[in-house]
């Protein structure tokens, strides 16, 4: 019996050590996996969101309210609900196309590629941001840069470098992802000269639609002092069934 003892001891030790070992594995989660988790967190199969956008400029500010539907990476639809002047304006993103329905002129305009890098509705986001052709998971290579504390939370700091085949204007993007909830709290966008262009801060973590998400996203263009755009999720519903034929130019005109 005496012989078993050490083996028991070993087993005991092993049982004690294994969880520790497993934890280290968890901590050593590959950068790509972290990004994937964070991406899945903010994106369901489908989503239906009530969003407020605030444009902040040095001398004025403006608030818009909108409803947004999305399905996977390919389809999304945005309906502006206020202010009254823009009410009824609809944006449809279908694979790589963006359409814009303007009720006051009864026209549906397909945004030309030349307009993709222009401001969307006067915000600090471009039309291209809206289309988000690039997937943060597939189109980038990811690398750990260590951990940092951001807004009191431990975060993975990950550098994302676009793959040569991806059509992405950034040289690199650095993101901070919360270790616990896998929510992206901050992102920095660098241009091809290595200069910081945009900072995106996310915060106000809330449980909406059965998920924990960052309900406030702030986009700050670095070279324009005093300018920023807030996106606030007032409500969001994930994984509701939306048919593909909802995302048609015909449907844009009757959206409510």
């Amino acid at each position, binding site marked *: 019996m005496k012989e078993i003892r050490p083996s028991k001891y070993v087993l005991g030790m092993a049982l004690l050590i294994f969880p520790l070992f497993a934890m280290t594995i968890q901590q050593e989660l590959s950068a790509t996996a972290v990004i994937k988790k964070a991406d899945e967190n903010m994106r369901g199969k489908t989503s239906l969101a009530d969003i407020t956008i605030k444009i902040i400029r040095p001398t*004025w500010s403006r608030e818009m309210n909108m409803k947004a539907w999305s399905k996977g990476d390919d389809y999304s639809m945005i309906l502006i609900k206020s202010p009254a002047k823009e009410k009824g304006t609809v944006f449809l993103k279908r694979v790589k196309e963006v359409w814009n329905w303007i009720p006051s*002129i009864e026209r549906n305009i397909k945004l030309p590629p030349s307009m993709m890098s222009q401001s969307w509705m*006067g915000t600090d986001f471009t039309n291209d941001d809206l289309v988000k052709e690039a997937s943060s998971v597939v189109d980038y290579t990811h690398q750990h840069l260590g951990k940092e504390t951001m807004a009191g939370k431990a975060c993975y700091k990950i550098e994302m470098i676009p793959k040569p085949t991806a059509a992405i204007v950034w040289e690199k993007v650095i993101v901070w992802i919360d270790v616990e909830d896998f929510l992206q709290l901050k992102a920095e966008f660098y241009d091809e000269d290595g200069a910081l262009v945009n900072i995106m801060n996310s915060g106000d973590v809330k449980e909406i639609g059965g998920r924990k998400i960052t309900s406030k996203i702030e986009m700050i263009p670095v070279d324009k002092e005093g300018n920023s755009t807030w996106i606030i999720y007032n409500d969001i519903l994930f994984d509701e069934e939306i048919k593909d034929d909802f995302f048609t130019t015909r449907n844009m005109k009757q959206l409510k």
Partner: protein
Amino acid sequence: MFLKLAWLNIWRNKRRTLITTASVFFAVLLAVATRSMTDGIYVNMIHNVVSYSSGYLQIHQKGYWDEQSIDNTFEENKELTQSLLDNQDIQHIMPRLETFALASYAEKTKGVLILGIDPEKEKEVNKLHEKVVEGNYIETINDNAVVIGEGLASQLKLKANDTIVLLGQGYHASSAAGKYRVKGIIKLGSPELNNNIVYMPIQRAQSMHGAENRLTAISIMLDKSSSIETLKPSLEKEIDTDTYEIMSWKEMMPEMDQFITADSTGHYIIIGVLYLIISFGLFGTLMMMTFERSREFGILIAIGMKKRYLAVILLLESLMISLIGCLAGILGGILIVQWFTKYPVHFTGELQEIYENYGIEPIIYFSSDEKIFITQTLIVLLLSTILTFYPCFKVMKLKPIEAINS
């Protein structure tokens, strides 16, 4: 005594005096006529271009000119308007909202200049309604219709009473989109305006851009002859220069100012040559006179006339002749200028087309600015006075014996 002598002297040989007077007369007449004509053309050109585009002076929100965006507009201000209207030199003020947008009709789309205007004021100031070639002019600020340039209409393949779609950027990032009936098509001289302009009642333009009661500029129209150089500083004292900026057409359209300067230099050279010819003509007559009268001078000196006095008399004589010539020249000049002001010269044919392409009426106007008369007359008078020193000099050098024997 000298005056009487000089006066009698000049009428001793009437023909000689008349020839000299005539050369001075034509000199003044020519100088006045050319100067008045070129000035008239410039003034008219400026007036034409300026009244359709910027106005003589414009008041903007400070910083607008450097960044011409709808966000740099200012609120219409009763006090400002009133203080401008109280100014004696200001004939009209015109509120304007100027933006760029895309215009579309059927399959065609084109970038355009939207000019929100007060239709009644434009009608009064630059007779915009007379330029309508198809359809009608917009009558009131509430008219929900636009008037577009003929070139633009033909590019969009659009006729009067069609509906044009306009899409642009509104105030504070709002959208600016609207459908408007094209009430009329307007033909403007400047191809740049003709191909791009959309005139819209200002109220409509403001609501389209979500910029209620806001203006990009107040255009100020002055009388053709008013001086911008003196008015601008005086206005700058009246308005709040921390909020507003005031600019003259020269600052807003430097290319036109430069064109005028360059063209004007050419005319100055021509006038210079004219003066040279005039001077030689005068000099010739004076020289002839000195030769003809050298015997007379010799005798006068021989019988005890002081050379100095003789020189003074000669000086007075030619001054008198020049003055007579100048006065006659001014009278003639005034008549010519008045005639042409009443019956301006209309160009025809090719020249007319060239002028119209530049956006200028094909008419030669004469400027009746009194400055022209005064300066031109003074220049001719000065020339003839300088030239008179030649006979005086000759008299001072005269040797009586040689002169009498010659």
